């Protein structure tokens, strides 16, 4: 039994909780939080690796995936979508016919992929590809909880698709994770607020 617990890889780990807010103090959802550093266990990705097209929107708006992962693009609408990205990190084009059609894209480079639909200009999503072993996205309260981060020196990185300034930048902080002692780190990130109004022309 004792051997078993040690081998699970969680005995020397802790939960890293990250809270992201805007300079106004509002919680910031959809921020990508990664924790990097040497890891002995396989990479755990949160949730399923898919971006759905539903009601002429992408769901989720932001996805974080490990390098080399495949992301599925299921079309749940009754209409066609022409999903594409021209980001150098992973350019692709998918012609998705009505309802039910799914195709996948594999992402082999670390970076950001801006995803759009050529038929519906208002559709927008972002994929962040990372080498970090631990990753999560902040919820509506601006909080991301990453369990089972191995003890040691770690770097927490925070990124948001609408962050002010360069899209390639990110907030980084060195922390020490101690076994069985959860930590809470707070970050502040200014974001742009583009108009949600779109024209039909």
């Amino acid at each position, binding site marked *: 039994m004792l051997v078993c617990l040690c081998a699970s890889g969680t005995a020397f780990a802790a939960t890293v909780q990250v809270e992201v807010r805007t300079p106004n103090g509002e919680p910031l959802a959809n921020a990508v939080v990664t924790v990097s550093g040497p890891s002995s266990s396989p990479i755990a990705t949160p949730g399923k690796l898919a971006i759905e097209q539903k009601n002429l929107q992408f769901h989720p708006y932001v996805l974080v995936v490990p390098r080399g992962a495949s992301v599925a693009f299921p079309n749940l609408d009754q209409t066609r979508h022409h999903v594409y990205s021209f980001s150098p990190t992973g350019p692709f084009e998918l*012609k998705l016919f009505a309802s039910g059609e799914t195709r996948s894209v594999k992402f082999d480079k670390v970076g950001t992929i801006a995803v759009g639909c050529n038929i519906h200009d208002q559709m927008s999503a972002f994929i962040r590809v990372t080498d970090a072993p631990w990753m999560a996205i902040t919820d509506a309260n601006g909080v991301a909880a990453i369990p089972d981060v191995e003890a040691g020196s770690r770097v927490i990185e925070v990124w948001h698709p609408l962050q002010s300034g360069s899209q390639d930048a990110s907030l980084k902080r060195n922390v020490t994770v101690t076994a069985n002692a959860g930590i809470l780190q707070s970050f502040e990130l200014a974001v742009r*607020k583009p108009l949600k109004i779109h024209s039909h022309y």
Partner: protein
Amino acid sequence: MKPLTVSFAFAVLAPIASAQEASLGDVSGMLDFRIGGADGESSWLDGDFGKLGLGGDDRDFKLDARLARGVLVWRPSLSWSTDLYLQLEVDPEQDDVIGVGEAYLRFKPLPSGPVRYSVRVGAFYPPVSLEHDGLAWSTTHTITPSAINSWIGEEVKVGAVEGTVTAPLADGQLSVTGALFGYNDTSGTLLTFRGWAMHDHQVPIGGSFPLPERTPQYWSFRKRQAHKAEPFREIDDRVGYYARAEWRAADPFLVNFTYYNNAGDGRSYEDLQTSWATTFSNVGFTAALSDDFHLFAQAMIGKTDWIPLANAPIPYVDDVGFRAVYVMLDRAFGDQGVALRLDAFDTADRDQAFSYNSTPETGWSVTAAWRNQLAPGLLLMVEGLFIDSDRPSRTADGIAARQSQLQIESGLRWEF
């Protein structure tokens, strides 16, 4: 462009697209039911000077219930980058109860970088209105559009080739649009003979609207102008143009500018419809004051000229200037929302060539609307609109130059 022309385009282009690339596309639509009424003078739709879609019964408040608008929109694709937009309209108040609203072919290649291109060919409205952001050029904040966009809806539909380039710029986005057009030579006729109005009737392709029957201009204009305006009409075979730039900033606001010139020669006429030389500039501004609180504003200034006698020397032109502005605040509360809009407008006889002081007017309006999205696709709206205007040509109709009206309307809009 006539429906026949569009069908022809489809028949020619369909074989070019491979069977796999083409798609019958979606059909969507809308039915808009109204109960409402107004006091004061009769509506301009009845050949009077009333500025609203509804009017009084012997000046008393008159209530009626009706289907205000029915729409079917069909968007088949010829390929992944080319689709067709076809909008059929039902408006029981118009001479043409059934008509084609907009019909165009859109080409939008897949972007290979941050710069995007698109081209439209067909019959459509120039992108001027900030209020018509709903399905099939419908308003979403109020039932009745502003004076500026009521006029766009009735007299500024074009048959055009239009190209747009959109590129990211300094954390924001810049769009530049240019178009060459025809079929809008009579634009300005309603503004001259009737003046500004506020209503949601849209001109179908080939449609017409009445002009005030007893306006004194007809004594001098009757050889050139019927008692109706046909806004979607090519008369002088000259090519008009419009150009537009829109800047969407990183901060939540956008600003745009449009210049329109129908290049009308001001002297050609046929079937008692005349080519007016009409130009205008429009500035639009939208800002999100918070996530749920938006400000919209537009200002327009323009002029329209014609040469009353075909052989008259060029300096003898009739020159009507027009201006209008509105500011609207919109606050959303979940599925509900309220909007408050102030409008001001005027027209001026700039060279005083028209007799009987017949084209100038000044006016203003306040509109308040409440909306409730009862269910997806089911929108309830209630609106009160007050309008006050001074137009001396009303005296030819035996009524006082200054008139005001109150219109109260509720609408239930079903989109499918």
